[in-house]
């Protein structure tokens, strides 16, 4: 607890976070990958900023724009929130590359990546943090774990998810039922180990990260969450399924060739500017 009294509202905590630069290491870094999210990004930032600020810990928000061609980056930049970092890149590199840039720029003890559509409400971060506090290295929000509550998910996405889960668990031996939920929490050490190694820039980066977590003997668990399908999803189930199967083979091939034995990306330290163009 800091100098704000216990009776203060989450609005008070938010206002302090929005205007006062943190001076210590963040307890939490939240990374939002964003590609053409001008319609969704501001409400998502508002919800996340209000809730995480209410936890009364130092934290930072990183929006990793992925070469958006709409006004996503401009909208975020104009917010003028002192503990928000906007990472930009001139070209669209894929969700995996955006998450990697964000995670490697994060300075928090814990690193959460959360999709820009707020499909997994931010309030559920506490249940993931509890698992980290119990000793886990990676905690995955799961729509497939017992107790999960999934709303408005289309039939095609249900079939797609079930198929992926069967392949991943049965063939790939990854003990996680839902590899693709865009809400995952890592310790800083685990995030560094995983994201400096992972190579896939597209949709299947989650799968690669979890594969590497198993390879590196990181303790990984799933937490059932409430998940609400956000209209306007950019996921094309059929296209992604093909890419997913291709990437499964690529991951195995990369591993067989020893491409995961060392780091593939340098650590990134960002302490000063809030807007950091990256190439």
């Amino acid at each position, binding site marked *: 607890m800091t100098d704000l009294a216990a009776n203060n*509202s*989450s*609005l008070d905590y*938010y206002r302090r976070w929005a205007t006062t630069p943190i001076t210590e290491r963040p307890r939490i870094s939240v990374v939002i990958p964003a590609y053409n999210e001008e*319609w*969704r990004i*501001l*409400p998502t*930032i*508002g*919800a996340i*900023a*209000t*809730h995480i600020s*209410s936890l009364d810990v130092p934290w930072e928000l990183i929006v990793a724009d992925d070469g958006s061609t709409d006004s996503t980056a401009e909208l975020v930049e104009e*917010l003028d929130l002192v503990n928000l970092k906007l990472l930009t890149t001139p070209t669209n590199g894929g969700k995996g590359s955006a998450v990697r840039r964000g995670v490697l720029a994060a300075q928090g003890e814990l690193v959460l990546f959360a999709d820009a559509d*707020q499909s997994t*409400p931010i*309030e559920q971060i506490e249940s993931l943090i509890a698992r980290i506090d119990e000793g886990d290295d990676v905690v995955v929000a799961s729509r497939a774990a017992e107790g999960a509550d999934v*709303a*408005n998910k289309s039939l095609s996405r249900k079939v797609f998810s079930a198929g992926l889960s069967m392949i991943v668990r049965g063939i790939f031996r990854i003990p996680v039922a839902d590899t693709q939920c865009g809400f995952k929490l890592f310790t800083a050490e685990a995030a560094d180990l995983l994201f400096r190694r992972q190579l896939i820039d597209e949709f299947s980066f989650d799968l690669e990260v979890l594969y590497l977590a198993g390879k590196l003997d990181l303790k990984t668990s799933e937490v059932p969450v409430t998940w*609400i*399908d*956000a*209209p*306007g999803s950019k996921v094309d189930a059929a296209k992604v399924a093909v890419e997913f199967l291709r990437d499964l083979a690529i991951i195995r091939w990369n591993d067989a060739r020893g491409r995961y034995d060392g780091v593939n990306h340098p650590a990134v330290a960002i302490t000063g500017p809030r807007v950091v163009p990256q190439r």
Partner: protein
Amino acid sequence: MDINTIHPTDTEVELVLHGRFDAHETEAFRAEVDTEMASGHHHLRVNLAAVEFVDSSALAELVRGMKRCRELGGDLILVQPSDPVRVILELTKLMSAFEIV
């Protein structure tokens, strides 16, 4: 999201929303607003105290309702928006567009 419509007096209408107000809920909200307006109620209060999240579709729907009410000499007033909703209204620069009580 649940919508509970109450009539404190013959002329007052308050829509009390509960839950997540997103694109899945805008149709039900619009239907409720339209029903009340068709009944001659042009002064609507929308209670957002128990709403934890509004997306851009919901914000657009609130703006639509507000404009329709004002065109007919009334207004759509936001009542006690929750902290996250208030922050979202600030970030989207919509705080000044609405009367908020």
